[in-house]
C-alpha cells in the first residue's frame, strides 16, 4: 500500500510542462532536405567559405560515408533518415546589420521570450552572449568591450573570415574529423557556433555564453564551438539551449573543442534544456554531442559542469585530455531523465602528463520511465606518474519504472597512480518526503528540495547567475514526478 501511494504521487508529480516549446515565425533561408556532397558544398558556398574549409568538410563527409552509427550506448535510438533532415536553415539576412535595431524584430522577440535580450544594456551584467538560431549566429554582445582586452568572442563563421590562422591551427586538434560518427557528420555540415580566444595573461572579466535555439522544423543543428585559452588566461563559459515542442525528433550533433595552454583555466558550463518530447515520449531532440578539452600546457585546468534536463536522448561525454604535467580535469554533471527520456552520459579522463589530476562527480536523476546511464573512462597512460583520479557517481530514482545504470571503465598503465571510484544508488524515501510534509512543506516542494540538495555539489560549480536558474529548471523538469 505504501508503494502504491508512493507511485501515485510519483506519477502525479512528473507532469511539468516544457516552457520553451513555442515556435517563432521567422523568414528563413532553408536548403532542401537531404545530405550529399552537393549539400556539403552548398553549405560552404552559402557561408562563403575559403577553400581549405570546404576541403575539411568534404574530407569529413567522405569519411562519414564509411562509418556506421555506434551501437554501444545503452540507448534505444530509432533509425535516423539523414535524407529527411534539412542541414542548413538561417534567418534571411538583412543587409548591413549594424546595430540591434537591424535585427528582425521577430528574432529579437524570440530571444526576449527566452530571457536572452540581445541589447547589451538590458542584459545580465557581466555576461556576454552569442545567440545562435538554427544554423547561424545572430548577434554577439559585448564584442567590442572584450576586444579591448584582446579577447576574441564571435561566431564561428566570423572567426573563419577574420582569424583563419587560429581556426586552422586549432580546429580538429582536440576532436579530429575522424573521431566518431556524429563528430564526423558535424565536421562535414557544421553551420555556426561560437569562437573564443583569450590571449596570454588575460582573465576574462565576464562570463561568456552561447545560447542555442533550434527553431525550424525538420532541421538539424550542427554547431561547433572552439575555445582557446592561451597561457596564464582564464575564462568561464556557459551554454544554454532550447527548442520548440514538435512531434518529430530533431537531431542536434555539436562539437565543442577546448584548448588550455600553460597555466590556463577554462570553466565550461552547460544548462541543456532541449525539448525532451512529450509525456508519451513523442518528439524531442536527439542530443548527440562531442565535447572535449585538451589540457595542453603545464598546470592547465579544464572543468566541465553540466545540468542536463532536456532532450529525448542525450549521448555525450565531455572529456579531458590531460597532456600537460600537473594539469587538472574536472567533470560535474547532473542528468535528469523524466517521462521517456534516455541519457547515456559521462566523461573520459585521459591522463598523459605527470601529476595529473581528475575529479568526476556525476549525479543521475531518473523519474517516470526515464533511463539514465553513467559511462565513464579513466585512462592512465604509462608515463603519467602520480596520476590521481576520484570518481563518484550517484543515482537517484524517483519511482519504480525508471532505471539507473553505471558503466565505469578503468585502464591504468602506471603503478604510481591512484584511482578511486564510488557509486551509490538511492531512492527518494517516503520517509524523507513525510518529514518535509510534517514541517509544512508540500510533496512537490519537498522533492524540489531533496533533488536540489542531492545535486547541490554540482550546482555549486555553476556561475552564480545560472545556479538559481538551474535549480528552478531541475524543479520544473521533475514537476509532477514524486511522492
Amino acid at each position, binding site marked *: 500500500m505504501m508503494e502504491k501511494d508512493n507511485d501515485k504521487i510519483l506519477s502525479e508529480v512528473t507532469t511539468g510542462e516544457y516552457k520553451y516549446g513555442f515556435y517563432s515565425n521567422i523568414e528563413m533561408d532553408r536548403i532542401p532536405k537531404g545530405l550529399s556532397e552537393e549539400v556539403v558544398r552548398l553549405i560552404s558556398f552559402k557561408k562563403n567559405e575559403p577553400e581549405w574549409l570546404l576541403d575539411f568538410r568534404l574530407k569529413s563527409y567522405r569519411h562519414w560515408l564509411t562509418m556506421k552509427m555506434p551501437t554501444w550506448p545503452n540507448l534505444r535510438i530509432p533509425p535516423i533518415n539523414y535524407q529527411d533532415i534539412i542541414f542548413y536553415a538561417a534567418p534571411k539576412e538583412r543587409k548591413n546589420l549594424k546595430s540591434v535595431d537591424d535585427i528582425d524584430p521577430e528574432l529579437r522577440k524570440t530571444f526576449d521570450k527566452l530571457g536572452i535580450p540581445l541589447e547589451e544594456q538590458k542584459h545580465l551584467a557581466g555576461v556576454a552572449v552569442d545567440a545562435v538560431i538554427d544554423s547561424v549566429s545572430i548577434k554577439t554582445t559585448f564584442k567590442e568591450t572584450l576586444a579591448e582586452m584582446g579577447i576574441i568572442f564571435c561566431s564561428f563563421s566570423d572567426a573563419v573570415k577574420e582569424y583563419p590562422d587560429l581556426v586552422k591551427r586549432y580546429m580538429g586538434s582536440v576532436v579530429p574529423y575522424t573521431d566518431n560518427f556524429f563528430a564526423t557528420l558535424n565536421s562535414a555540415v557544421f553551420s555556426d557556433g561560437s569562437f573564443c580566444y583569450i590571449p596570454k595573461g588575460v582573465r576574462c572579466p565576464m562570463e561568456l555564453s552561447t545560447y542555442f535555439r533550434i527553431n525550424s522544423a525538420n532541421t538539424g543543428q550542427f554547431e561547433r564551438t572552439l575555445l582557446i585559452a592561451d597561457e596564464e588566461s582564464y575564462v568561464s563559459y556557459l551554454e544554454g539551449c532550447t527548442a520548440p515542442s514538435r512531434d518529430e525528433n530533431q537531431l542536434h550533433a555539436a562539437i565543442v573543442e577546448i584548448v588550455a595552454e600553460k597555466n590556463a583555466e577554462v570553466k565550461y558550463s552547460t544548462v541543456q534544456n532541449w525539448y525532451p518530447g512529450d509525456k508519451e515520449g513523442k518528439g524531442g531532440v536527439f542530443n548527440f554531442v562531442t565535447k572535449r578539452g585538451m589540457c595542453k600546457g603545464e598546470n592547465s585546468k579544464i572543468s566541465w559542469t553540466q545540468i542536463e534536463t532536456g532532450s529525448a536522448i542525450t549521448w555525450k561525454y565531455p572529456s579531458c585530455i590531460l597532456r600537460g604535467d600537473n594539469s587538472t580535469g574536472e567533470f560535474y554533471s547532473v542528468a535528469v531523465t523524466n517521462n521517456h527520456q534516455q541519457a547515456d552520459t559521462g566523461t573520459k579522463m585521459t591522463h598523459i602528463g605527470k601529476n595529473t589530476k581528475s575529479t568526476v562527480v556525476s549525479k543521475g536523476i531518473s523519474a517516470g520511465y526515464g533511463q539514465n546511464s553513467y559511462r565513464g573512462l579513466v585512462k592512465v597512460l604509462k608515463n603519467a606518474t602520480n596520476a590521481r583520479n576520484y570518481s563518484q557517481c550517484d543515482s537517484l530514482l524517483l519511482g519504480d519504472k525508471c532505471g539507473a545504470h553505471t558503466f565505469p571503465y578503468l585502464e591504468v598503465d602506471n603503478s604510481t597512480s591512484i584511482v578511486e571510484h564510488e557509486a551509490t544508488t538511492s531512492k527518494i524515501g517516503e520517509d524523507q518526503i*513525510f518529514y518535509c*510534509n510534517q514541517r509544512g*512543506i508540500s510533496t512537490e516542494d519537498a522533492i524540489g528540495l531533496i533533488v536540489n540538495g542531492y545535486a547541490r555539489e554540482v550546482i555549486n560549480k555553476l556561475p552564480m547567475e545560472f545556479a538559481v536558474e538551474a535549480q528552478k529548471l531541475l524543479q520544473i523538469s521533475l514537476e509532477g514526478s514524486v511522492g
Partner: protein
Amino acid sequence: MLIINNLKASIGGKSILKGISLEVKPGEIHAIMGPNGSGKSTLAAVLAGREFVEVTEGTVTYFGKNLLEMAAEDRAKEGIFLGFQYPIEIPGVSMVNFMKTAVNEHRKHKGLDPLSASDFLKLMRDKKELVEIDSKLANRSVNEGFSGGEKKKNEIFQMAMLDPKLAILDETDSGLDIDALRIVANGVNKLKHPDNSFIVITHYQRLLDYIIPDVVHVLYDGRIVKTAGKELALELEEKGYDWIKKEIENNVEA
C-alpha cells in the same frame, strides 16, 4: 483543541489501535506511556498524517475540524508538530534552507509575507539560543551525520522555529544522555505557554522529572487502560508495566 474519539487503526491489515479516546485542552501537557508495541508511535503517526496507517473507525477533531481529512502538510501548517522518534536525514539540504522553506510555508498559510533573509537568520539565532543547540548544526545538512542526541535536539529546535499549537513528541527522550535530556526538556518548558499543548510519548518516567505533565495515560495493547495525574508516572516507575498488565487481566477475569 484535540478530541480523539474511539480511534481504531491498523497497519497492513493488523489492528494496532483498538479504540482510543482522549481530549487535549489548550495549555495541557499529556504524557502517554506504555510498554513497547502498545501503539504509542502509531497514535503519533495517525495524528501527523502518515498514510501507511489506516484509520478504520473513530474520529479526530482538531479545533473543530476533521483532522483525518487533512493532508500532512496542512496539519503541520495548522500547528501540529511531530517530534520524530527517528529523525530523517536529508543529505545536501541545509538546515537553513529546510527551515526557511518550512517557516515561509507556515507564514504563507497565515497570509504573511516570507521573512527576509536577515530576519530569518535572526529568528534562527534566537531559537538556537533558546533551546541551547550548537549553532554549527544549523549549517549542516538536515540530520546528516548528527549523533542521536543531536538529532533529538534538532527536533526541539525545529519545534521552536515553527511554534506549534500542538506538539507531539514521540519518544524524544530515547537514546539521550542526561545532559541532552535536560536540554530537550528545558526546550519544551521554555516553549510552553498557556495556549499550546504537548503530547509527550515516552517509555520511561525520567523525562517526566523535567516535563511535568497534567495528565498521564497508559497505553496497552492499543487501548488507554489508565488515566490519572502526574503521580501515575511515578507509580509506573516503581512498579513497572507488569502491574498494569496484571490489573487488566484481573479486570478481564472479573
